[in-house]
């Protein structure tokens, strides 16, 4: 954990998170959850929070608070399924939260058995509830680590370049750009996604979208919707980027929808994890999100959903929980984003009109 020279980008990154994403106000309790490798950013964030006259409530552990994976592997199941009162209180009392992922190994936790994993997800619902409902400001981001670089097939300096290019942007200008696409989709009823092996229609009728102009996610750079729950019809193949679920990598996920529900599912690898995810609960078979990636700083998939879903020329669909503030009504313990790159042979069609082909906008 030696940091030989301070990277000025870390300080800018911290200010972006504290001042723009959260706009921290005096006396707030800002919950910062992370792991030790994020130390330079955590400390810069603590300083920026202090300067705003607020509390930094740092929750640092080997795995992301509120679940310790070593504990969760051996504790009695009833305890694994329910947060202790102390952590529930923190969930209710926090005024904002920052999640900084900085994994030492992106596969940590993949050996937790499925029953315990489901219980962990249940206990953490208390934590995610207020942020999914947008009751408090929140942001999820990453600090560059060797594990994330390795996952992306990059060196650490290469990953740092991409991460900071995607995050340290003029977000007011990005917002203007995102709003233009939002108007286009807000006015549309039917979205059709076409590509090799793919022809899926879904409805946004009566739904409005939201821009992520660098607030809840860093990097931001997407517009997203809760599609009408019973509208998805057709087939989609996620052939370009692998999907990751609970530490398992899935290649070539193919989903067929009828009346909004997945009625057929397969994958070239990791099919069992796919089927298990769909069996989680009734809501896991429905779409909770349609997102359109619009961040020009993310040019290639990195096996990293936070970045991949922002890639310009990609769309993503999430199975499971939808955003109630966007009119979504689907309820599920999962919210699993699957990213599809449309830059090779894909197109987006709005109410019969092609608006994007091969990842390029035709507006």
């Amino acid at each position: 954990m030696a940091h030989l020279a301070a990277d000025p980008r870390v300080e800018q990154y911290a200010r972006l998170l504290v001042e723009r994403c959260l706009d921290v106000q005096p006396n707030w309790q800002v919950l910062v959850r992370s792991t030790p490798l994020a130390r330079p950013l955590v400390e810069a964030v603590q300083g920026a929070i202090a300067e705003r006259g607020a509390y930094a409530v740092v929750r640092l552990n080997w795995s992301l608070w509120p679940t310790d994976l070593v504990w969760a592997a051996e504790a009695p199941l009833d305890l694994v399924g329910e947060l202790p009162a102390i952590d529930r209180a923190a969930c209710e009392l926090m005024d904002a939260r920052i999640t900084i992922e900085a994994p030492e190994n992106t596969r940590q936790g993949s050996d937790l058995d499925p029953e315990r994993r489901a219980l962990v997800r249940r206990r953490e619902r208390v934590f995610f509830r207020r942020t999914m409902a947008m009751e408090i400001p929140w942001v999820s981001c990453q600090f560059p680590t060797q594990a994330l670089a390795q996952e992306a097939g990059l060196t650490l300096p290469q990953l740092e370049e991409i991460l900071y290019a995607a995050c340290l942007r003029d977000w007011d200008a990005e917002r203007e750009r995102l709003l233009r696409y939002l108007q286009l989709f807000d006015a549309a009823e039917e979205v059709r996604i076409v590509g090799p092996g793919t022809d899926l229609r879904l409805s946004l009728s009566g739904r409005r979208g939201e821009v992520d102009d660098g607030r809840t996610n860093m990097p931001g750079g997407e517009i997203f919707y809760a599609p009408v729950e019973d509208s998805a019809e057709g087939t989609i193949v996620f052939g370009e980027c692998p999907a990751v679920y609970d530490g398992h990598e899935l290649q070539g996920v193919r989903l067929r929808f009828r009346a909004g529900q997945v009625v057929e599912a397969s994958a070239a690898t990791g099919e069992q994890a796919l089927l298990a995810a769909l069996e989680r609960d009734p809501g896991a078979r429905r779409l909770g999100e349609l997102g359109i990636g619009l961040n020009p700083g993310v040019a290639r998939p990195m096996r990293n959903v936070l970045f991949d879903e922002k890639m310009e020329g990609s769309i993503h669909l999430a199975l499971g929980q939808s955003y109630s503030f966007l009119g979504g009504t689907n309820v599920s313990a999962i919210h699993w984003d699957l990213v599809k790159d449309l830059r090779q042979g894909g197109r987006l069609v709005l109410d019969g009109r092609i608006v994007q082909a091969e990842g390029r906008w035709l507006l």
Partner: protein
Amino acid sequence: MEEATRRIARRGAYALPRLSFSRVDPAWTRRAPSELLARLPAIEAYELDHADCLLVIEAPENTRAGSEVPGERLTLRRSAQRPHVEPFFSGEKPWLGCQFPTHALAQDAGMSLAAFNELLYGAVLVDWDSLAKRMRRIADRFDAGDEVRIVAEGTDLRFSLAGRHGQVDALGANMPGGEVFYSPVEDSAEGVITFAEYPACYDGRAVEGVRLRFQGGRVVEASSRTDEDFLHATLDADEGARVLGEFGIGCNPGIQRHLKNTLFDEKIEGTVHLALGNGFPFLGGTNVSAVHWDMVKDLRRGGRIELDGQVVQDGGTWLI
């Protein structure tokens, strides 16, 4: 930490692990407004108030981390925490402070990590039942006594334990344990003590040659060879900082030398320690302070302890 977490899980209890880069979080503490330093955030207050027990594992990368934070800021933070940690320190709820061997701790002790490892486990993995019995005999003797006098070169200090009883730390709040400790009568200390053998370590500082003169229980004169400003600032932290909160007698035979590490040093057999500041209410202590600064004095070369006029320890060897 992982092993402790695992064992807590097997006991069917919640583990709530909290890591921190240092004890005082300088990145926030240096720059936060002082009114925030003086009040714990509700989340942390709730957490301390509702924790059933507390396990603190120190594993510093650098024992001086946090020493750049001004003392008055640390005092504000400590005062804010005090009411919430008091139930642990007063014995209402179990707590334990211990260390995991790191290079920084070894370096302060002037040792390699391998040698420090040996020393730490030698002091920690001992037969606590038999050590507890030995310490109980010492405590019984001091419980029955009134006046303690500590005599050594540059040192002649008297204070009273009248009406006070002591505590044996065997498997209690510290690991390693190995001390018998008291809260002396608050207005009783009279005389001079010089901590010539070892530096007095607190808040990342190691203050050399501390000399304190007491009158009516309060420090009326204080000097040191190094960090004298820090010594004076700490004494001025609040009303109680000039009064003795603790008298302790080191009894752990596994610790023979000073490690610039209070958790260990105060347990060295043949030493005593005095703490300025907060006393132990469960031992009858009434002194209140945000400070609790343990200073260790080695009596093995020419020092002695007298109890009601009788020499009970001479040159670090018990005569009882």
